[in-house]
């Protein structure tokens, strides 16, 4: 059986700038079951995000919002917006490594 990813359990996974210095991402889960998976701190936590995005674990904020079945993640932009190394001006495509994270069986 193929592995299940967070994207499979989500209605939408998105990323965006939150001002010039922060990236923010939201996992809009389809239902409460999907939310329980995404909100499980033993599965999705600061350490996992730090390794996916090569950012400092202590700079990451994770917000779990059960009323919306949403998990929101924010961290400082690792590459300065518009600089020579910035390939994603609006940080609009940075959700992909999070979206394809394989959930525990």
């Amino acid at each position, binding site marked *: 059986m193929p592995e299940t990813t967070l994207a499979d359990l989500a209605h939408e996974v998105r990323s965006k700038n939150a001002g010039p210095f922060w990236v923010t991402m939201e996992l809009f889960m389809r239902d409460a079951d999907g939310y329980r998976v995404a909100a499980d701190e033993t599965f999705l936590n600061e350490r996992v995000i730090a390794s996916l*995005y090569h950012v400092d674990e202590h700079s990451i904020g994770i917000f779990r919002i059960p009323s919306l079945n949403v998990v*929101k993640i924010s961290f*400082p932009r690792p590459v300065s917006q518009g600089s020579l190394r910035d390939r994603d001006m609006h940080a609009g495509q940075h959700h992909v490594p999070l979206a394809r994270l394989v959930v525990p069986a």
Partner: protein
Amino acid sequence: MDKVRVLAPSGMLGAGWDHATVERGIALGADVISIDGGSTDSGPYYLGAATAKTTAKAVARDLRSLFTAAAGAGIPVIVGSCGTSGTDAGVDWVAGIAAEVLAEEGLDLKVARIYSEQDAAELKEHLGAGRVHPLPPLGELAAETLESCTHIVGAMGHEPIVEALRAGAQVVLAGRATDTAVAAAYPLMKGLPAGPVWHAAKIVECGGQCTDNPRAGGVLATIDADGFTIEPLDPDAACTPILVAAHMLYETANPFEMREPDGTLDVREAEYTAVDDRVVRVTGSKFHVADQHTIKLEGARVTGYETMSFSAIRDPLVLADIDEWAALMRALITQRVSQTLGLAAGEYAFDLRLYGHNAVLGELEPETGPPREVGVMLLVNAPDQPTATAVAKVANPLMLHLPTPSMDYLPSFAFPSSPAEVERGAAYEFVLNHVVDCAPLELFRIEFEGKTHA
């Protein structure tokens, strides 16, 4: 007034909308039209160069829609962050377009311009007096950083806009303002409570984004003493509690709190209820007035000048070894630039991006499959434009012919245009994320034109 209806036609002036949606908002009893004209979202260039992202024709078209509707209803129009970045040049650019539209339509409306551009020397005095504080992730500000900026703006709250409205302005063209201040100003002036006002302002700042069809036009927020309701201007679109609540997450680092110059919106206890199948009621929003009023600064400076070159690869032999090929390319560009131009690595910089392979995410890319075709972008940054272009020209033979280490012949790659080099001009970066302790009107200037007998 026990109720104020704020019409938000779109998330950005110049984005366009169906004029019928604005007329519908007027028919629903709109008391004010507010729209955001800018953002930092598209990068530091627009502030650094004081240039708008939108085109004049689109801005004129949208202003015509708003001015004719507002003049007919006798209600004010408020535009924030004019010219994308809200520089003085941006305000004057929108004011010039507005004057033409008003003349063409035969409308006589009193226009206020609020300037938000800041002088580095004056900001240095604030810095010296300990009134400038960093916001994470930036640290303490150095005076030289202020001096290095080509443009600095302060993001105004509602107060300067209220000041202009009280002086009789029917059209307010504001420099840099918080996205929410443009929608919050009129209802706050009318005495409505700050919690519902700021929360409604956040929800309407992107126009129809909190509806099930964001392309169908804007929204109308009706604010009262206990909360607000929100509905789409297109009768076929709908707001739902989830969509409205979810908009509080959009482009915010913290989903529960949002800082404004005079305090903090707190939506932890907000409740979202469906009034019917397309209208939502929101209650429980709070606003905590801050002990100290602060204005957030934005500033951009030149990092150098860029030249871009773009080629493309379809040859499967090269694509099979694309990472090795790119590593060789980087090494040879550095070597040839040193040999030919005598430039050391620290005297210029370049980024080689393999579009179709891993250009967007770089080392974060999780997929490993072989690409079918790859666009090769070389982006060079140097202290001046001729040097950036010289580096790109030295790299050109490699961009055309570089074989992989295992090939024993010269391939020729696919340049999409001639000349191969595109000079991009100055490149910028944002360097300020700091607030200044100051009085609400202190950093802003208001000027009037047009009708003077208000």
